[in-house]
């Protein structure tokens, strides 16, 4: 008891780590948005947009995935550690795609 309690000072911080319960209303709004986005992406695929067809489709998919990660997977309400972990996953995935494509695009440079 003689030693100062190293945890006592951090006690108020614990509120931040408290389990956040996401309300069903949020889930309802998100599932609605996801279904609307699905309808949108299907409609968009029927419209001739040339090079923009895949771009629009991927953009909508990224938006939908972001909604799922932030709300269904609670990342918006999670600790910094979880947020950093998700960010790392995204980063390594971009490295995977980016570096591989950089290789394939630049492989034949100067040979044509």
């Amino acid at each position, binding site marked *: 008891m003689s030693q100062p309690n190293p945890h006592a000072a951090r006690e108020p911080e614990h509120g931040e780590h408290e389990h956040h319960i996401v309300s069903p209303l949020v889930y309802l709004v998100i*599932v609605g948005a996801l279904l609307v986005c699905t309808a949108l992406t*299907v409609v968009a*695929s*029927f419209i001739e947009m040339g090079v923009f067809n895949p771009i629009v*489709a991927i953009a909508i*998919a990224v938006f939908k995935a972001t909604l799922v990660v932030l709300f269904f997977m609670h990342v918006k309400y999670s600790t910094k550690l979880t947020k950093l972990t998700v960010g790392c996953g995204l980063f390594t995935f971009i490295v995977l795609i980016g570096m591989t494509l950089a290789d394939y695009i630049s492989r034949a440079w100067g040979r044509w």
Partner: protein
Amino acid sequence: MSDSPAIIHDAPEADAHRAHPAWQRHHFETVEQQADTTNFAMWLFLLTEIMFFGGLFTAYLIFRNWYYPAFVAGSHQLNIWWGTANTGVLIVSSFTMAMGVWCAETRKKNGLVLCLILTFILGLGFLGIKTIEYSEKIEKHHVPGFHYSLQSFLDPASDPKIYKEYHDKPLGRDMAVHTELYFSLYFAMTGMHALHMIIGIAILSVMIFRARAGAYTTGHVTFVENFGLYWHFVDIVWIFLFPLLYLISRHANP
């Protein structure tokens, strides 16, 4: 920090063994720390899953650029409406799963059981629709292997249902053979996704019984929460598979 001897003296003498819930393991200092740790571990597992599916997505991206006409013709064989239906089923199942987590958090046992059963049924529904799609591919000999048929690509008019919609021009034999690569990736990606669904459904079937016994509604929600993360991750994989396999090649001409 828990290796510090000071911690033993943290609490008042009388309260040396602080009361904690039965599910708190002794190597964790607090329940919050335990919950954060398991959550972190689950996300690390999902990171390996991102890289696993990421490899398949990268392969698809590169081969689609190399053998573009073959991939477009292959994609035209898929039925957009089955794909859309499956996307809807999976999104709603993600919603019921999220509601299940909420029920566990607010200790609603019957609600949790209902949500898990709904998620289970929707998961089976997804696999059912996938089976219809797969059997169509089997009938047309579009499953890569010895019996693979180039008929629909060498002579698109011989496949009237698809031809009526897309009016694809015939592919040369050297390009048509690469449609087999499209279907290899199609079956690898949707098959791995379906395998994840099957594993998820198997775990769900156990969870339904445990939830009925009241296992997750006593305040210890970690298992339901982390299973939810897994289920939503599988949903996200499909959110990307759907446009890549079904949608983006609709207007492209092979």
